[in-house]
């Protein structure tokens, strides 16, 4: 590796930031230098995003100082930070849905010729960046509003790359990326590192951190626990530094109780949506967890939405406990028949961000906590407190607006709602996106517990280890079609990836079943 010219450093010292009663950061010291990738890990609400927001000028530190290349650095706003060479990929998607892919990528740094936009240069630049991320075929004229979260994430990364910053801050960029895209991103990160860029990478997936980081910093409750070279860490030590205690078993044991398989909880036959999915068939029993793997755009979310009634289905048949379901059956009726969905789009659909934790947990079940339409605040309050405790939701009070929680804690609120619905069939679309290891363990345990109570669960995830750790059976989606469902033991990570990318089963050609 050619030695990059380490021309600058960003040094943070004694950074503190308070949100009302919450101390998000307290006296944090950290430094990052060109040509290096620094990974920051920590529990949900540890203050990672807050730190990046301070560096990128979105919020200001209450105290402490920063030095950029030896000069004092106090970005007043994102514009100032950008001008100083700091670009960020935000944890929540942050794009202009009405503008094209090209306009979004080049927003704020359009090549101009005498005040006019130089469309040709702009498109060439976009093409180059997208090609680097292996998405060179993406139509630059598509308006971003029509893209799926996964593709939007790519666009957002492309935008950060287009800014040619010296410091690139990536806040959970991989949480909605497929394996393949993640790999591409890491290759890009390596290249950028070699060009002398400083990269900060946040992820809750420790393998990713291991793959890409040079140094790893663990923060807890707004304070730096330890920062050291990658070689000085191992997974166990990272986890115990994050959580404050060691964790042994990440995935819970499979079910002991066998449920009588007289009726299927969900039965889909050749289900097709207006665009995706195409002719999906599967059967799911109570007490079973069915995993669905696939690349982004493979139609997993669409399948979930069609089952839930959020999108119309065009052809095919669907039954819940032998009751057939058609487009006339409203979401409300589906909920009352025991269906529940955890949306992958937390901010856009999953949560009413300006409302309290309590309200968000109880929206579907208010009628159970009310008499003659009048709500019993005592009961809902108690229930909320229980869920806050069970899921370790980090908050000031049950009445805190959800938008003031950290990303992972928001996810927990969404889960709490789903569980409190007491649905018989749970569709979980990326349930642990943005959730820290400690909480993941808790969530896995809860999912498994739900299954052992006789719930049928569909688990959509782009994170293969959790599919393998949790599911009883697994299917792979490709281009809107669902593969044959097989017990988890008959899959390997390779066979899943092969099927997801090519659409053909490896098994058919190689016949090497484990």
């Amino acid at each position, binding site marked *: 590796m050619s030695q990059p010219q380490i021309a600058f450093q960003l040094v943070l010292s004694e950074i503190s930031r*308070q*949100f*009302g*009663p*919450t101390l998000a950061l307290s006296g944090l010291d950290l430094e990052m230098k060109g040509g290096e990738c620094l990974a920051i890990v920590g*529990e949900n*609400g540890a203050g990672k995003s807050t730190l990046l*927001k301070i560096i990128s000028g*979105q*919020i200001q530190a*209450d105290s402490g100082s920063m030095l950029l290349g030896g000069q004092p650095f106090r970005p007043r706003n994102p514009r100032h930070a950008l001008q100083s060479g700091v670009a960020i990929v935000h944890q929540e998607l942050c794009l202009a849905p009405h503008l094209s892919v090209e306009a979004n990528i080049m927003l704020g740094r359009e090549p101009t010729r005498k005040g006019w936009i130089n469309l040709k240069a702009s498109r060439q630049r976009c093409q180059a960046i997208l090609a680097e991320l292996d998405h060179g075929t993406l139509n630059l004229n598509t308006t971003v509003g029509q893209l799926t979260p996964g593709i939007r994430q790519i666009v957002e990364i492309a935008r950060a790359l287009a800014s040619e910053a010296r410091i690139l801050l990536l806040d959970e960029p991989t949480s909605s990326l497929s394996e393949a895209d993640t790999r591409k991103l890491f290759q890009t990160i390596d290249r950028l590192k070699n060009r002398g860029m400083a990269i900060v990478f946040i992820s809750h997936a420790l393998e990713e951190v291991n793959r890409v980081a040079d140094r790893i910093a663990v923060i807890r*409750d707004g304070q730096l626990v330890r920062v050291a070279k990658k070689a000085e860490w191992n997974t166990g030590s990272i986890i115990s530094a994050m959580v404050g205690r060691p964790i042994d078993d990440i995935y819970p044991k499979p079910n002991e109780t066998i449920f009588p398989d007289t009726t299927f909880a969900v039965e889909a036959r050749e289900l097709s949506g207006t665009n995706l999915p195409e002719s999906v068939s599967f059967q799911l029993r109570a007490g079973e967890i069915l995993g669905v793997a696939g690349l982004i755009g493979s139609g997993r979310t669409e399948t979930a939405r069609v089952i*839930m009634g*959020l999108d119309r289905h065009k052809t095919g048949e669907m039954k819940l406990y032998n009751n057939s379901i058609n487009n006339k059956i*409203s*979401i*409300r009726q*589906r*909920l*009352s028949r025991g269906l529940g*969905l955890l*949306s992958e789009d937390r901010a*856009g*659909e*999953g*949560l*009413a*961000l*300006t*409302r309290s934790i309590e*309200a*968000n947990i*109880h*929206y*579907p079940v*208010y*009628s159970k906590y*009310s008499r003659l*339409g*009048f*709500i019993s605040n005592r009961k809902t309050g108690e229930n909320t407190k229980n869920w*806050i405790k069970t899921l*370790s*939701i*980090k*908050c*000031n*009070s049950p009445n805190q607006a959800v938008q*003031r929680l950290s990303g992972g804690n928001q996810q927990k609120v969404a889960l709490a*709602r789903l569980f409190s619905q007491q649905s018989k069939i749970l569709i979980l679309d990326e349930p642990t996106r943005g959730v820290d290891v400690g909480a993941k363990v808790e969530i896995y345990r809860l999912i498994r517990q739900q299954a052992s109570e006789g719930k049928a669960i569909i688990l959509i995830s782009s994170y293969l280890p959790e599919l393998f750790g949790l599911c009883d059976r697994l299917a792979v989606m490709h281009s809107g079609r669902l593969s044959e469902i097989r017990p988890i033991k008959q899959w390997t990570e390779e066979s899943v990836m092969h099927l997801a990318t090519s659409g053909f089963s490896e098994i058919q050609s190689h016949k090497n079943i484990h």
Partner: protein
Amino acid sequence: MKNSINNNPRLTRISAILAAGGPFAGLLIAITLFAWLTRNENTFLTEFNFRTIAVQSVIVGLSALGMTLVVISGGIDLSVGSQVALVTVVTSLMGRDYHWPMACCFIVGLLVSTSGGMINGIAIDRLGLLPFIVTLGTLQIFRGSAKLLGKNTAVYFPTELKPTWLSEIMAIETGPRFQLFTQGFPAPLGKILTTVPFAVWLLMLVALLVWISLRKTTWGRYVVAIGSNEATARLCGIRVGMVKISVYTICGLLTGLAGLMQFAEMNGTGDPVVASGLELEVIAAVVIGGASLAGGEGSILGTLIGALIMRVLRSGCVHAGIPNATQDILIGLIIVGAVALDQFRMRLARRGLSH
């Protein structure tokens, strides 16, 4: 992991006081200002003048209660002014052309505006259009219908059919009918009941009902949820369409009540051009009261105060001898000022809580 619940009680308390006091502060400032301006005359700070102001804010207030619900649900209703006109015309017509007793005419009037509101709601829900556009259309449609029905001119309710209580509805001094009722109460309560005009009692009663249904019922929660994030509400199985339609229908009903008050105030006249521009005044009241046009936020008490503030201004200007042009400018400044103050207060109260 520490769940640090409210570990700074002082900040919380200040914020709570400020939250309640926001619109109140504006009202007090306005009253103080005019009391000072009219210090040489003692006509402004009189019980009678306050009763006048209170009665004058009833029409805007009633409609603004409905509008508060609509705004909280993330919508807007521009058609309220036209609805008021339509109600006065229809009510008067029923008496003039069909000789119905007034109480029945009132019911017809309410039915008309309630259906008007329901039409708004259905169009918004079924056609999937922005409330601004639908109600911009119905603003014209209802106004046109009022003109058409009234043949472009005022419709007078026949004098011989007018009951005595008509003039008592919007009377500034309590009429004998209502006194008969209030006399039944023990002395201090009866005195209070008598001092406050009937229309103001009505407004307060309606406000209480709206407040209860907004804050204590599941329906109220759903309204707020829809205003906060419609997709979430849908996902949670809330019947978004039904709730929206109900909100606009209730807004129509309350605006219909406002229309009846208008009818009574005009001593039984149906006027197709009355209340034009009322919508902006109503929205101003709601917004001064602390509601957010982005949905999800709004306060019943705030709305009432918002309606009062504007009437205090108008009345105060007359008492202080300020000409109409200056009145307009003052009102404009107050609208911006009150909301800016509110914003500032909120920022202060949650300082450090947001980015």
